[in-house]
């Protein structure tokens, strides 16, 4: 942390959110987490009232642990429930049972956290619409504040990718993926969790993730630990840098009192526009065109007039006042659409 503080961009920062995630921080004893948070306050300048989120696995969510976390000032927990289906959990290699997942949610809510979110994964090979629908209903019935539902994509070079390459599993066909994607939005909306981003759903606007939003709108953030990314504006423009992802090089550098950087990049205006575009298109609110022009110096609508006319006609995008947003159908193909916009 001391090393991270040396990063000039954050010298005077007053962090108003802290996120403990990546890996399984709930495995760390509360004392350890306490030291970490104390360091964040004293060394990095996290505000005393900072909104702290903890990622937790159901196995570690006990009444006692919740009380300890509450004492540390942790306001939000994001639970890696993944599924309420036995077979899904086995496929994903999770150590907890469907019951444990539900119990963890109930325990955390009972502990009085003002924000409890459940992480779910869908689109597993062979998953039926009915099975996923039951999952969503179970999750909603637990009445958390927030849900994140990630559709499984199988990438080459990942464990699932290797299994797919060996023919042990097959990615769900695209039409079925599209149906599940649409089902998720519709069901959760009906169950009281309208979508505010491709994979994120909240019971109310004020219950949207306070921390993730920052990644989406170029708010500076400082990442600490293995593979963590940071972003900051500076005199030259904007910069993103990231830490070593493996423990050995990371500890070696830290032991030598060096920042454990693996890489960094300067973002020119084109890169910033592209990120703002791709991230903005993913949100339910869409892109505020006035704000986009002020911040990134481009009239996005004027630069993409013909495209927008077509996307509107095809019911993929819509204009609402100064906002440009994708329709549910558009959201399902947001990546491809982002690639089509002119940002020059």
């Amino acid at each position, binding site marked *: 942390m001391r090393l991270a503080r040396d990063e000039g961009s954050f010298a005077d920062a007053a962090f108003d959110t802290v996120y403990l995630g990546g890996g399984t921080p709930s495995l760390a004893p509360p004392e350890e987490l306490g030291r970490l948070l104390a360091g964040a306050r004293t060394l990095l300048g996290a505000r005393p009232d900072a909104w702290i989120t903890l990622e937790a696995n159901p196995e570690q969510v006990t009444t006692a642990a919740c009380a300890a976390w509450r004492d540390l000032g942790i306001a939000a927990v994001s639970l890696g429930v993944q599924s309420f289906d036995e077979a899904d959990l086995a496929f994903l290699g999770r150590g907890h049972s469907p019951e444990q997942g539900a119990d963890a949610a109930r325990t955390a809510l009972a502990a009085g956290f003002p924000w409890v979110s459940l992480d779910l994964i869908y689109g597993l090979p062979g998953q039926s619409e009915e099975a996923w629908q039951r999952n969503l209903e179970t999750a909603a019935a637990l009445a958390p504040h927030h849900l994140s539902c990630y559709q499984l994509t199988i990438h080459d070079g990942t464990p699932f990718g290797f299994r797919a390459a060996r023919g042990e599993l097959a990615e769900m066909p*695209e039409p079925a993926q599209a149906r599940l994607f649409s089902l998720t939005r519709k069901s959760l909306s009906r169950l009281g969790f309208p979508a505010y981003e491709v994979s994120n759903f909240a019971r109310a606007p004020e219950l949207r993730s306070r921390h993730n939003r920052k990644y989406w709108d170029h708010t500076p953030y400082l990442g600490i630990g293995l593979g963590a990314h940071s972003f900051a504006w500076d005199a030259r423009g904007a910069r993103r840098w990231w830490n070593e992802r493996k423990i050995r090089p990371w500890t070696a550098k830290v032991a030598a009192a060096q920042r454990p950087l693996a890489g960094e990049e300067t973002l020119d205006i084109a890169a910033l526009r592209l990120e703002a575009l791709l991230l903005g298109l993913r949100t339910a609110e869409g892109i505020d065109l006035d704000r986009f022009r002020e911040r990134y110096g481009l009239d996005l609508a004027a630069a993409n007039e013909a495209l927008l006319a077509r996307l509107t006609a095809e019911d993929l995008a819509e204009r609402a006042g100064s906002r440009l947003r994708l329709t549910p159908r558009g959201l399902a193909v947001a990546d491809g659409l982002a690639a089509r916009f002119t940002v020059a």
Partner: protein
Amino acid sequence: MLPAPPGGADTTVDQIRNFCIIAHIDHGKSTLADRLIQRCGGVEEREFRNQILDTMELERERGITIKSNTISLPYTAPDGREYELNLIDTPGHVDFSHEVRRSLMAAEGALLVVDASQGVEAQTVANLYLAVEYGLEILPVINKIDLPSADPERVMEEIDSDLGLDPFAAVPVSAKLGTGIDELLAAIVERLPPPGGDPDAPLQALLFDAQYDPYRGAVLLVRVMDGRLRPGMTVRLMHSEAEHRVEEVGRLRLKRVPADELVAGEVGYLIAGIKSLAGLAIGDTLTAADRPAAVPVPGYREAKPVVFSSIFPMATDDYEELTKALEKLKLNDAALIYEKDSSAALGFGFRCGFLGLLHLDVVQERLEREYGLSLILTAPSVRYRVALEDGREIEVDNPSYYPDPAAIRQVHEPYIRASLWMPERYLGPVMELCRERRGTQPTFQYVAAGRIEMTSELPLAEVLFDFYDRLKSLTQGYGSFDYELIDYRPADLVKVDILVNGEKVDALSQLVHREFARPRALRYCERLAKTIPRQQFKIAVQGAIGGQIIARTTIAPFRKDVTAKCYGGDISRKRKLLEKQREGKKRMKIVGAVEIPQEAFVAVLRADEEEA
């Protein structure tokens, strides 16, 4: 060094022989030419190779291709008499038949090369007819007698039956091994006639070829029919009416050798400060400005392009490169014509006219190979004559300029007489092919046992589209084909447009005979549907005549294409993926908000492979 040229003051026309070599491709024309050069030059093979290669390399550096091998050879006969043998090169394809005719005009004799194993081929016959038409003395040469598969007796039979020549007059040679070359040279001086012509008559010289020299400009290859051609005189080109002052004349050895004059009967070159080949018409007649000949050499025909296509660079940025390349190409390809063209879909390019499909291929290949360009060529078109209701008559070779059908009274299209040679067993399929292509008036004739010549009158337009490939495929390579333009006939023509999401892709419009409109449109649509990547919305690909849709395919959209997780701060990775994806789109053309990759145009416009 070559021996001193025998030309000049001591040479009389009796000592000159002007001849060309006519042969089917691969029958060994250039090897034979090389062998004659080598034998007459009296140089060692290694030295010869070096000389030839050096010249070629030099020329390559200067950006010229060796088109013409016209060369003067000093030859000493066994009886000690010295001769000047002028070997006049002829281009080897039907597209250049006009140029072939000019070359033949410059000669008195022709060596007709027949491959000892393959025998008489279509092209051999066509060229022979031409040569006979021009009154040339024909000397048959049976080449490649060294091949194990050589069958000189059968070939002699063919020379007799197919060509109507005396088979016993044929000289058997192996150009590769040098066998029979001395006999051939002896036969050339004995059996081919010397040129005629009157050295004291007004100058009349036939321009039969031209080369481009980056330092000297146009180098005109001429055959002096009458009179004398000297440096310092002013010559007039009788058809183009341009006048030039002659700087240098001379003979064509391996290099140009200047001379004091060229007299009637001689073949040589002339340099007159002409900057490019662009304004020169092969077949034109040079005469003296102060003492002109009464008439030009007969048979002049303007080399008229008959096939038209627009050439666009694959990458729009390459337009400048293409412009430069065409300018350079035009310097030594007088038959190539072009003008600026533009397409909403493909950007800026050029509308080009070609002598035929092969000429088009040659130009495309040279642009791609010598200038490193990647090109898209629109569907080749012929030039239609369109009579309008208001009484005017216009010519249209570009679908973009095709008038509103309501304003058209009648369209005429060029017809050809195609001659097709094939083994008898393929007659059925070939007749069917001609019938499919609106062929009429078929005639059949046995040219040899089992070998048939068929003629048919066809619209040229129907031959442009994969006809030759189909013929080759139907006859398993044994069929060959030649054609001549005959006349213009009424055509029931329509303009077929291709629409992507309702917007016209101008580069894909084409003029088609009505009965072929629907299948052609459907094929285009299907190919586009195969090559345009899926997009986020459904794409309709349609073929239309005016407002009427005659073919339709659709491309299903992507339905799911979005990354689930986009946080944890690692936005860079996602953005880089996107940047890569966008890079790939740079080469795409946008029509109706649909991204069409260049490959789609190439696939659609490519000659038909599946059907071949």
